[in-house]
Structures are given as C-alpha cells and as structure tokens.
C-alpha cells in the first residue's frame, strides 16, 4: 500500500516502513538503545532525504523509548535519581553539541567527519563490548564469576568526592562521573544525530558499575528526554519533521520495542552485551567499508535551494 509523505514529498510503501520501524523497535527495546544509528540509514536507503530522515527518526525514538521506559518502570528497573543526574549533564552536552555542529558545518566536510566518527566510535565501542561479552561468557562456562563487577576493584572513579546513594541501583557513587557521562552522551548525540544509548549503556556498566537490572531502563529515560528535545529543535529550526512518516515508524517501533523489552529480560546479561557488541560492530564495519571501498557511483547530487 503506497502512501504519500507530505514533508518528504515521496510515496512510500506503508508496510515496508512499518516493518522497518518494528525491527528497529525490537532492537531498541531489547538493548535499551534508541536505534537511530540503524533507522536513519534504512530510511535514506528507501529514498527519503537525509535531513528529513534524521529529523523524523528523533520522534520515532522518543515514542519507542517512552513505551520501553514505561514497561521498565513497571518492573522497577529504572533508577529515577540516576536518570535525573545523567540528564543534568545531558542537557548541557546537547546544547554544546548543537553549537559545535553549526560551527563544523561552516567549515565544510561535515559529512566525512560524521562518517569517520561513526566508524571510530562504533567499531571501538562494538569491539570492546563484543570482547568483554565473550570473555564473560567463557568465564561463566568455566564456572567462574560471570559478573563484570569484580569485588574489591574500586577504581579511581570511586574515590571521587560528592558521593551519593542511588538506591534502586544499589550503588554509592560520586555524581561527578555521572554528570560527565551525561555531558559526553548529550554532546556526541547532538553532533552525530543519534540518541547515544549504545555508548551510554556500556559506559554505565563498565565505568559506573551500574547493575544490568537498572542500566537499560535508566538509559532509556535519557534517550527519551534527548529525543523529545531533538524533535522540537528540528521542527522549529528546519521544518523537516514528517509527522506522517514519524507516526508509521512509531506504531511499528513501539510494537517492536515491547517484544524487544520482553526478549531482553529473558536473555542473560553477558549474552545481551555480546549481541549488542556484535550489532554495533557490524554497523561500524559497514560504515568503514563504505569509506574504503570504491563507491558504485562517484557522483552524488544534492539540492541546495529552490527558486521559483
């Protein structure tokens, strides 16, 4: 069934977009990530202008993460205090990121910079997660301790002042690294046009030592707030949010996210990390290949401005 999108100005197959939304929603519900780094390339692939795709995906991620966050909240898997502290850093980071984005665009070669950061960030984060997940899995198989939280290994992070008790996560931690991580995620998210969940989740696990039970739900809250903010920003500045496209993606996305969240609860933590590591690594490698291999077409066209 074809449907004409009023802002993107092209007809699309409703069922195809619905299925894409559901598939990405499933992944995002399972790992507690926004899935923007998967959805945006998919939309561009079906012929939607990159700017419209980025803007509309933000609202799709907002819907997916809200529905996910509600079900995590019901299972008491969200740490509201931790989320609030992360957000305080996240908002400042987002504002800084938007400012940097504008500066970079003025310099040119922004596309290349974004592609390079995708490659570096995705392959590094994905590779590390995959490696860590694999090691945890092997340890568990040998009958050792599978938890990444090694007893007694309190690093320098835990020596920082301004300690605070995060009851639901059962951790006692300084607020400084939490705010800094929120700041970094907000900044990266705004510059690269992604929610940043796939970086936030490992950072929370390995740096903050947040237990797996609350990490996914809490990161979803951060994604939700960032993406609602991003939707507003895109709608006000660029007028490129396609509400019809967003609605189709949302309906598919929230459905997928529900099943994904359920599946995520059933899978063991180290398996989950291994899978997410693989996924992130795969996308990173795909971007790397695109840069290295000779493209099928050396030329591209972009409209720079209408007139009459």
């Amino acid at each position, binding site marked *: 069934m*074809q*449907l*004409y999108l*009023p*802002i993107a*100005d*092209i*007809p699309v197959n409703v069922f195809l977009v619905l299925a894409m939304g559901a598939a990405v929603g499933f992944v995002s519900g399972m790992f507690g990530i926004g899935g923007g780094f998967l959805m945006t390339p998919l939309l561009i692939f079906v*012929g939607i202008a990159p700017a419209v795709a980025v803007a509309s995906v933000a*609202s*799709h991620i*907002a*819907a*997916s*993460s*809200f*529905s*996910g*966050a*509600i*079900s995590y909240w019901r299972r008491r898997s969200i740490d509201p205090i931790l989320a609030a502290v992360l957000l305080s850093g996240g908002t400042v980071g987002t504002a800084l990121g938007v400012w940097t984005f504008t500066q970079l665009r003025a310099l040119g*070669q922004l*596309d*290349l910079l974004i592609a390079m950061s995708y490659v570096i960030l995705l392959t590094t984060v994905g590779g590390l997660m995959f490696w860590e997940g694999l090691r945890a899995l092997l340890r568990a198989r040998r009958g050792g301790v599978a938890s990444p939280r090694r007893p007694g290994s309190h690093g320098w992070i835990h020596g920082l002042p301004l300690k605070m008790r995060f009851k639901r996560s059962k951790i006692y931690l300084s607020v400084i690294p939490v705010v800094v991580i929120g700041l970094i995620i907000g900044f990266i998210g705004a510059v690269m046009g992604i929610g940043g969940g796939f970086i936030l989740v490992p950072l929370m696990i390995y740096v903050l030592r947040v237990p797996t039970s609350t990490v996914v739900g809490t990161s979803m809250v951060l994604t939700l707030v960032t993406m*609602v903010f991003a*939707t*507003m*920003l*895109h*709608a*006000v*500045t660029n*007028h*490129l*949010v396609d*509400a*019809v496209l*967003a*609605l189709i993606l*949302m309906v598919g996305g*929230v*459905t997928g996210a*529900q099943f994904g969240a*359920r599946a995520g609860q059933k899978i063991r933590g180290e398996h989950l990390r291994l899978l997410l590591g693989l996924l992130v690594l795969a996308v990173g490698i795909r971007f790397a290949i695109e*840069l*290295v*291999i*000779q*493209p099928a077409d*050396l*030329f*591209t*066209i*972009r*409209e*720079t*401005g*209408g*007139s*009459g």
Partner: protein
Amino acid sequence: MMARIPLTLAALALGVALAASPARAERLIASVSNHRVTVTPNYSGEELVLFGSVEKDAQTPANRANYDLVVTVSGPRADMVTRRKERRFGIWINTDSRQFLKVPSYLALFSNRPFDAIASPEVQRRQQLGLNNVLLTQRVGPDYADVVPADPFRRAFVRLRSEHGLYRESTSAVTFLTPTLFRTGIPLPGEVPIGTYDVEIKLFADGALVTRTETAFEIVKVGFEQFIATTARQSGFTYGLVTAFMALMTGWMASIVFRKD
C-alpha cells in the same frame, strides 16, 4: 485512454484561444489532459497526455507535408550540487563539486524521430533539442556558463537525474495520429517535485523551426497533505509540540495494549 479523448478535445477548443500566435504559415494548438495534478495520500505518480494539432492556413507552402515535433517539459527550477568522490589517504571523500544554477528539477524531451533527423547539429544546439543540448548553467569560479556535453559533472548530473526518472529523453514518444494531429504522454514518477511545469512545443519542417507554443500544468498538494506541509512551515513550534506529544501518546498506548497482567 479513449475516455480521455472527449475531454482533451474540449480542452483543445479552449486552447485555440490561448495559442494565438502572430500571422505565420502554421499555428500550433496544444493542451494537456490535466492542468492541475493534485497530490492525495495515495498519489504515486501520474501520466498526463498532451494533445495538439498543426493548423495550416493559406500561407502554408503547399508542398509541406512532413512535420517534426519536439516537446520539452520542465519542472520547477532549483540549485543543485554535484559532488565527485576521490580516494585520499585510503578513503573515499568528496573532493570536487560543481553547482548547477536554477536547473529544472524535472525535464522531459520528447520527439517523433531522432533529433539528428529533425534538424542540423547547429539548430539542435540553438533550440536545445535533446538532453545533450539543454542549457544547464554551472557556476565555474566567478562565472556562470554551460559546459560541453562531455563534461563529467554534467554527464553525471544528467545520468543521476535520469536514473530517478526525473530527466528523460525519448525520440519516439510523440506520435502523429494524422499528418497534423499529434499526442504524447508525460510520465510523472511519484517523487516529482511540487510546483509549476512548463510545456514547450516546437514544430519543425525541413530542418527549421516553423513555430512554437507553450502550455503549463501544476502539481499541488491538497487537503491533508497541504495542511501538514503548511503547518510544519508556518508554526514549527506547535507542529513539534504536537509531534512530540503524538510520540508520547503512541508509546503510552502501546504499553497499555501490550501490558501483560
């Protein structure tokens, strides 16, 4: 197609008044089947039909029998950039680019026989017959100019637009139903831009331009599509607020629907 003919003939009658050309040997009368293409939710492209006829009068040379016709349809104009990737330090990056100024976003060139058979290369160039001869202005440094058809940026530009069905050329699309009555289809793919489309019809005989006429049609959004597009443009804040609220509602609804108790 048969159902369209009465309608087209009615439009033809109307077209007679519009196509009043100065006293020449021939007059060209033409009209498209639909002057206003409306974009509705199930719009996925359309094909228009252009009908017309060549009217002879007393001044027409008696021995003139074979006419050639070239139809040029050009969509709303826009500035576009063509970029070329090159390998630098092992990765492919955009190195060179050309800006095309106010070029048609849609361009179709139809004729009844190959352009080479219609007119000499000189006339083809002057009358912009065929995609190779159409003027596509580039910004070259501080100057504005069109380049040779073999220019790699120009060739790539035309090729990429053609792959999307937005630039097309057919030397058999125009058919003469009688020696003076002609028709051609104008295919519009789903991704054609919204706006005003100019149709220019040129009549050739013995390799020279005899007369020309113009008509136009527009592609417009109506109803829901138009409402969304204008709201997004004119009241961005409200639009964003509604979209964000819609996202939250969808997420909330889903968590209720899928609640497992």
